[in-house]
């Protein structure tokens, strides 16, 4: 993996992470610190899965 692919991967995961955190904030009703912690970790799981899924489909 060269520097450029690593950058693209990082950007893709970061983008998904931000979008999914936003989705979590939309779904919940009241925001507190624990919600932030749980929401960001769930969104990170989702973001990594999204990247892995796109790679699995792309690599053929």
């Amino acid at each position, binding site marked *: 993996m060269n520097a450029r692919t690593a950058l693209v991967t990082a950007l893709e995961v970061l983008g998904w992470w931000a979008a999914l955190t936003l989705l979590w904030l939309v*779904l919940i*009703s009241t925001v507190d610190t624990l919600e932030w912690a749980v929401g960001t970790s769930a969104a990170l799981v989702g973001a990594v899965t999204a990247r892995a899924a796109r790679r699995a489909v792309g690599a053929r």
Partner: protein
Amino acid sequence: MNGWTWTATIALGVGVGAAVWGVVTGPLRRRVVAQNLSSALAAPGLLLLAQGYGRPAYVDLALLLALLGPVGTLVFARLLADDLAGDPPRAWAVTLAVAGYGAVVVLVLCAVTGPGRAMVKLLVVGALLIGGNLVASRALSGGFPGSRRG
């Protein structure tokens, strides 16, 4: 009962009733379309019920139906691709009409809710529902060409 639940009663009775009738009778191409539209017809009803009961938590039901209903249709589109290839369903008019119904319900509920997090959640549900159903109809009419044993 209030106006919202009365509207939901009529909408569910007519809409889901038609979907049940469509899935029980007719050729396979009509049955898959009815199955696809059943989720698109039931989810706005669930949103109306959430508003009528005054319980925002019930929106989660519509969210899950909007997410998983089209996935269920994709299952049929994928595994019945061979059966549907010779006789693909063509029901764009009905599909678009049902999508319009979903959009109207979501927009009315948004107007009643007012700006805020709840309104964005309704819009997310609406987008997932309409997008999902349009993609599922596309998948039914030749979304899996050259199907083999994959």
